[in-house]
């Protein structure tokens, strides 16, 4: 399949799933009625459901999914390691820590924007620490080390907050929030996440050629005219902005950024630059599909999106191990 055909196919898939996301829900509206209400704004209840519940939820699935797919592909390309994922640089864990503090202190209940706001603050602090720790000229290895250090610290502090939580309800809130979900989000969340997400995409989108050149290693890429320190800065800021915004509005959703680049890599001839766009579309499609599945499988139980992506993702990994072993002949 040519690259263009793949992009067209993935775009069509995203469009179809987006439409499905608008049509499926507990309100049980007829497809014609719901789309009519969405466009015209007529029919009070239907228009409310469509415009205030389903549309922002579908848009957020596209934003968060594409950010995860794009960031995963970019990080894997930069680190030349298929196991890299957006959480690796510690931004997700730090954003989650910010959100957990908002939940624990009751700020989240007092003000709707406190939780995503503190999550974004957590992501920002993580980026600044990451850049200080990894230095301006360091290579991929120092970035991994700094990311792991930050992730562990943020994870430990999150556990500490849970540990010391005097209120079991707050603890339960925290645990459920950390599973990741797109339920009950509004356009407020979309407007909060959109600018940072787009900024992140923009920063990462220009890295294709540099990531391609990195196939030859850091030294060869630099000699090909790629400015690695600038590339790394754009990558870190891009991942932090898009994934940080995603965690702020949806919680930590795992496996999408890991598995989507993996699945699509053979279809783009393994070229890291081409994988960026394909992975962004694939991530959006996977998150839309997962969010649909969440609503269809257990409509009454509020199955968490992050739980589902992990349950879907882990077996794919098993398959990958099997395939790798078969190719290696062991």
């Amino acid at each position, binding site marked *: 399949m040519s690259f263009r055909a793949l992009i067209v196919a993935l775009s069509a898939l995203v469009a179809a799933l987006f439409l499905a996301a608008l049509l499926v829900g507990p309100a049980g509206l007829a497809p014609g009625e719901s789309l009519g209400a969405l466009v015209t704004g007529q029919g009070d209840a239907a228009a409310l459901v469509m415009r205030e519940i389903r549309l922002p939820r579908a848009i957020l699935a596209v934003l968060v999914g594409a950010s995860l797919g794009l960031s995963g592909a970019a990080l894997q390309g930069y680190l030349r390691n298929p196991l890299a994922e957006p959480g690796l640089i510690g931004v997700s864990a730090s954003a989650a820590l910010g959100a957990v503090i908002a939940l624990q202190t009751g700020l989240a209940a007092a003000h709707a924007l406190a939780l995503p706001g503190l999550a974004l603050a957590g992501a920002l602090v993580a980026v600044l620490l990451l850049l200080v720790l990894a230095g301006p000229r360091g290579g991929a290895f120092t970035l991994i080390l700094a990311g792991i250090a930050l992730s562990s610290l943020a994870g430990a502090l999150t556990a500490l907050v849970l540990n010391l939580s005097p209120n079991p309800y707050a603890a339960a809130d925290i645990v459920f929030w950390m599973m990741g979900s797109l339920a009950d989000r509004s356009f407020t969340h979309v407007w909060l996440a959109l600018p940072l997400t787009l900024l992140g995409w923009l920063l990462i989108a220009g890295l294709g*050629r540099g990531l391609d050149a990195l196939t*030859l*290693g850091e030294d060869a890429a*630099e*000699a090909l*005219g790629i400015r690695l320190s600038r590339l790394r800065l754009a990558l870190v800021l891009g991942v932090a902005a898009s994934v940080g915004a995603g965690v702020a509005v949806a919680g930590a959703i795992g496996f999408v950024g890991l598995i989507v680049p993996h699945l699509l890599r053979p279809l783009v001839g*393994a*070229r*890291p630059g081409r994988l960026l766009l394909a992975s962004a579309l694939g991530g959006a499609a996977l998150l839309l599909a997962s969010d649909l599945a969440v609503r269809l499988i257990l409509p009454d139980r509020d199955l968490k999106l992050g739980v589902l992506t992990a349950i879907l993702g882990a077996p794919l990994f098993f398959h990958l191990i099997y395939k790798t072993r078969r190719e290696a002949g062991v």
Partner: protein
Amino acid sequence: MTGLILSHLSVHRGPCPVVDDVSADLRPGEFVGLIGPNGAGKTTLMRAALGLIRHRGTSSLARLSAADRARTAAWLPQMREIAWPVSVETLVGLGRTPHLRPGQRMGAADRAAIADALGRMDLAGFEHRRATALSGGEQARVLIARAVAQEAPVLIADEPIAGLDPAHQITTMRLFAGLATEGRLVVAALHDLGLAARFCTRLLVLHRGRLEEDGPPGEVLTAPTLARVFGLRAYLADTPEGPIVQPVEVVT
């Protein structure tokens, strides 16, 4: 055409000089062999000359902007890294990176350069093979083809023929000599003194970071130099087939 002028080039790691005050004027049309024992500073010298690491003194290449340098000099590192299972054609095409503006697609000239490089490295028919599935020697040739496809007036290669079979060692050395004849400057770090003597037009001998000798192979590869720098006794002969340098014994 462009050469490479090094002036008092030094690289320090901590207080120790790894490359110590090297000056040389390398001209277009020369095939320069950089020889010296392990740890003599060959790789460091080449990376400093390219401006990839901090150094004192000047190198004409290191003063260029990153983009201009990439169009002027191709660098073939010792570490043969192919991170992803891309096609041979794609990998060799990476050599065209410096010639493309942001967003620009490859044109006829780029494709011709790739085909030419593949042909020169005896890789015609490999275009659509996965680069990671090739043998080590074949991967080495693909990476050389990548550097050749860059079509830069200067080619700097770190142990390019290590791990190649004897026939491909000779074809690669002949290719480099041919590129020099076309008016390019080729600088290659080499361990095979025999091939260096036969194909290079000039040898630089590096020992403990210092440039010990600089001249045509016949003047540089003498018994005293081989003993002092390499700790070697060698069979040296001038034959109708060209000079023969065959190390025979270690001297202490």
